[in-house]
């Protein structure tokens, strides 16, 4: 290898080396001559002796310079010059190829960036990635398998205690906490991590130190924080912050160090601003969880990272972790007998990939991304077949030139390499265009409101992620080379055949029909794929429409969510009530606020869940998941949820009065079929506790899962709830919440005592992010589908236009023989419509057979909806007609006189 590199370097400076060798040999010659003279030969003789000795100078020179000549490289240089010259002569062709391939490859570069971010890219600084895994917990629940990354701290301790397969374990969680104090306080992403987490990475602090195990202890760790590099730079100007205090959620932390640039742990999708010991965070919660999180199995909130010991296989590790989980399940059941038995739940552990997108339970977003990536690759296939078509046309146009060169003895191999050089050059330029397009697409996506996708794209070129930046360019280059080979080889193989002599004899119009079949086939392939993509796009767009049109059971556009983040000393109930009262009064005094309510949570944020016991129902849990929310009286008015029967909760439902609840219509139906639910009663948590009476039935409300079929939900009074205090205030506004959000936040913030903090968010934003995967599917499918349509239309136009030009003479003759112009119009248009029809038929077949797989990604939309199939086919045929019409009119305008005179 080294020798070849040296050879390559020599090749680059071959002219200088030639010159030096010549000098060296002249020196040699001089020395020989001088030696001969010294031996007593006369000057003339000496020269001839020297020349004789040195033999044929040119031969010596030639054999030495072979060492730095690389013939194929010389030839390549020649081919490259030839290709560039050829392309300069046809800039339109070159531009079309570069743009078409640029779009095709660019689409793939975009999707590779997304997929890479979601599931492939190794984390920065991660050590020994092959043996590092995330733990996924799996168990049976009501007949279905539940897979979850979240678990309890106690379970994490159990896993460490009862397994032997892992050399390292770390627990971690990502939280949005208010960082800073006063007006500068902002909600920011914070990583709460065990001290062992740092050992998984080869990262060293750029300032100070990381925290150690002595600072990460139960019940509560030390109040220390490590800053992320970016946050340190932007908020602290990179000064020495060691020893400074920073308010993080409920913790007043001392800064002890700064992580190196780009270090985000395993969460690089939304990098944290700082790292807090996990026990410090858990131990400072303003709830009973702070005291029980390390002994009880109640609060599943964190993820676990493990490293396998060397020599332990994945299967062994999985078996080991699973037995620990079973043992731990038993221990949890001893605490809480209500949970299912170990035999029934069959708890298992999957030791799997760090990136959840590639894990056993990928998000809908990740699955949609894979689909869109497949779509992008189809766009590339279309682009390639289009460009291959163009190349084929070019090769055909040069057929006589080629035949002539072959006849003159140029080898076919040489011709092939020349064509490949041309196609590869164009493809690589297309690759560069693709990178530009991909970059631009990132910005465009951000504008279009696809934050999730654009974040994945944008973060790849911020300075917080300087790692692995070669990944996208190298994939792009690989795609470009593959595309260049394909589009270069197709026409090359085709044109390699044929009879030389006939071509040479054929004259200008020789062999008109050649290649037409091949080009038509390529065109049908393009149309087919475009139809498939457009059908997919239409299905996604319709599904997004259904998602948007779905009744949520509340007004999305009028409600503002206010989250109260309590900080400072742990509150008792009376201060809670007081603060709630102050905030409520402040909110109600604002003229834009129509009504306000407290709730334990908000739709898509979280729901609460507890065991239910209903007289006359054997196992409520078997019927489904029943979630609840603790609210105040005005909740339904604020959310705009209709009470179908009975009454809403009222201010009179206080502690001390009988417990009441409002249930969703679905819940009433499933628990008390064909009965009146009003007045019925159920027990929460345990059947020995007092019963809760149903006083009202509300319309169904989407609480956590748009796609989910079950809407079993009930509402209890905050004042009658012992568990939740209600940290969310819901405001119904008279105007657009997005516009008023910051004013309201400031008014509320001013009214708040102490260091507590409020955040505001329009409900619409929360709902939109829950619709993200459909939105992504619809946008990307549509973008790529239209791209495919455009490329296919250009291809169709190109083919028809070319064949019209080739048959110009024929049209003229037809007209001279009495054909009407309309006949020619029909002939040309008919050709393109026939191709389009064939493509549509094939496309519909392919789409129908693929519909099964796309079904899970759609929302209330049949993947075989005939309306979609018919509309798309019609659109395609119209496009084909339009694309063919320009050349068709040109054909109809052919000049019969010119045609007859030509020969």
């Amino acid at each position, binding site marked *: 290898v080294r020798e070849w590199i*040296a050879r390559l370097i020599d090749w680059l400076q071959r002219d200088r080396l030639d010159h030096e060798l010549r000098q*060296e040999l002249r020196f*040699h010659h001089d020395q020989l001559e001088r030696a001969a003279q010294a031996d007593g030969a006369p000057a003339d003789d000496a020269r001839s002796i020297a020349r004789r000795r040195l033999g044929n100078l040119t031969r010596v020179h030639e054999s030495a310079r072979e060492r730095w000549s690389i013939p194929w490289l010389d030839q390549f240089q020649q081919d490259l010059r030839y290709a560039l010259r050829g392309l300069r002569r046809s800039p339109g062709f070159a531009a079309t190829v570069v743009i078409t391939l640029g779009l095709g490859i660019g689409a793939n570069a975009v999707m590779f960036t997304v997929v890479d971010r979601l599931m492939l890219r190794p984390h920065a600084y991660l050590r020994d990635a092959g043996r590092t895994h995330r733990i996924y917990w799996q168990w049976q629940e009501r007949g279905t398998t539940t897979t979850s990354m979240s678990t309890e701290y106690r379970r994490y301790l159990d896993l460490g205690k009862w397994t032997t397969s892992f050399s390292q374990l770390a627990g971690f969680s990502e939280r949005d906490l208010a960082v800073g104090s006063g007006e500068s306080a902002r909600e920011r992403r914070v990583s709460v991590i065990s001290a062992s987490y740092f050992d998984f990475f080869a990262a060293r602090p750029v300032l100070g130190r990381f925290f150690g195990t002595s600072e990460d202890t139960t019940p509560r760790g030390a109040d220390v924080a490590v800053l992320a590099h970016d946050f340190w730079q932007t908020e602290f100007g990179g000064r020495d912050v060691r020893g400074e205090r920073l308010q993080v959620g409920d913790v007043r932390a001392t800064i002890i160090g700064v992580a190196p640039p780009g270090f985000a742990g395993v969460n690089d999708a939304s990098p944290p601003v700082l790292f807090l010991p996990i026990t410090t965070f858990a131990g400072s919660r303003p709830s009973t969880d702070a005291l029980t999180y390390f002994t009880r199995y109640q609060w599943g909130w964190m993820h676990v990272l493990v490293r396998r010991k060397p020599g332990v296989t994945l299967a062994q590790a999985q078996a080991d972790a699973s037995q620990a989980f079973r043992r731990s399940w038993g221990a949890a059941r001893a605490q809480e007998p209500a949970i299912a038995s170990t035999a029934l739940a069959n708890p298992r552990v999957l030791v799997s990939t760090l990136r959840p997108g590639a894990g056993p339970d990928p998000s809908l977003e990740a699955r949609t991304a894979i689909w869109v990536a497949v779509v992008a690759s189809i766009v590339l296939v279309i682009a390639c077949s289009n460009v291959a078509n163009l190349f084929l046309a070019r090769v055909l146009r040069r057929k006589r030139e080629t035949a002539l060169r072959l006849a003159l003895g140029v080898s076919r191999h040489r011709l092939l390499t020349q064509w490949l050089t041309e196609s590869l050059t164009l493809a690589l330029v297309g690759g560069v265009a693709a990178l530009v397009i991909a970059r631009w697409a990132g910005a465009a996506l951000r504008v279009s409101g696809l934050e999730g996708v654009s974040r994945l794209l944008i973060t790849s070129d911020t300075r917080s992620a300087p790692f692995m930046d070669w990944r996208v360019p190298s994939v792009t280059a690989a795609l470009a080379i593959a595309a260049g080979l394909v589009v270069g080889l197709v026409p090359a193989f085709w044109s390699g055949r044929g009879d030389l002599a006939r071509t040479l004899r054929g004259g200008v119009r020789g062999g008109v029909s050649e290649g037409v079949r091949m080009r038509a086939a390529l065109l049908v392939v393009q149309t087919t794929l475009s139809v498939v993509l457009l059908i997919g796009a239409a299905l996604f767009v319709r599904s997004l429409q259904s998602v948007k049109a779905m009744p949520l059971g509340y007004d999305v556009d009028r409600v503002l969510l206010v989250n109260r983040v309590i900080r400072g000393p742990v509150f008792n109930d009376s201060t809670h009530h007081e603060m709630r009262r102050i905030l409520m009064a402040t909110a109600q005094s604002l003229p834009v606020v129509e009504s306000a309510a407290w709730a334990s949570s908000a739709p898509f944020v979280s729901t609460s869940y507890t065991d239910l016991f209903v007289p006359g129902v054997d196992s409520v849990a078997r019927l489904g998941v029943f979630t609840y929310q603790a609210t105040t009286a005005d909740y339904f008015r604020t959310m705009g949820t209709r009470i179908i029967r009975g009454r809403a909760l009222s201010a009179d439902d206080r502690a001390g009065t009988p417990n009441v609840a409002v249930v969703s219509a679905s819940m009433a139906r499933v628990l008390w079929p064909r009965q009146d639910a009003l007045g019925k009663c159920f027990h929460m948590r345990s059947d020995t506790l007092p019963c809760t009476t149903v006083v009202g039935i509300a319309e169904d409300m989407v609480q956590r899962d748009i796609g989910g079929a079950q809407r079993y939900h009930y509402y209890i009074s905050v004042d009658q709830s012992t568990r939740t205090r209600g940290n969310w205030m819901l405001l119904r506004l008279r105007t657009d919440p997005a516009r008023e959000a910051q004013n309201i936040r400031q008014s509320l913030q001013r009214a708040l005592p102490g260091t507590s903090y409020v955040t505001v968010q329009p409900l619409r934003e929360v709902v939109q992010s829950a619709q993200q995967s459909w939105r992504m599917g619809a946008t990307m499918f549509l973008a790529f589908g239209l791209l495919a349509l455009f490329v296919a239309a250009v291809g169709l136009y190109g083919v028809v236009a070319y064949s019209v030009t080739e048959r110009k003479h024929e049209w003229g003759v037809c007209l001279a023989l009495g054909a009407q112009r309309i006949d020619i119009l029909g002939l040309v248009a008919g050709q393109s419509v026939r191709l389009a029809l064939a493509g549509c038929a094939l496309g519909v077949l392919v789409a129908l057979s693929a519909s099964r797989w796309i079904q899970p990604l759609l929302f209330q939309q049949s993947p075989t909806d005939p309306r979609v199939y018919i509309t798309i086919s019609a659109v395609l045929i119209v496009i084909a007609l339009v694309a063919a019409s320009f050349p068709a009119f040109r054909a109809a305008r052919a000049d019969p006189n010119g045609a007859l005179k030509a020969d």
Partner: protein
Amino acid sequence: MTRRDIFPGMLDMLILKTLSIQSMHGYGIAQHLLRLSRDVIQVEEGSLYPALQRMRQKGWIKAEWRQTPNNQRARYYLITASGRHMLGEQEDGFKELLAAVRRIMNPI
């Protein structure tokens, strides 16, 4: 004295050996080999210069332009560390081969 061809591959070893004593230009190397072999080994320039270029590309020797004692510009060749290593290996191989040939020629 009759001139004899050398085995293929042996030229590299001889050049390296020569350069391990002193850096020299191409002419000097040829003269050195001729002198020490008492005119038996005469290297063709047609083999010498390609061999020098090959060895330079392999990184065994380096080339640089210098003034000769007679104040002429000449390209001198220097042995590199990897060249010395190569020389050692070739010498060992050569000795082994020589011993083997001897045993065959004088089987006692």
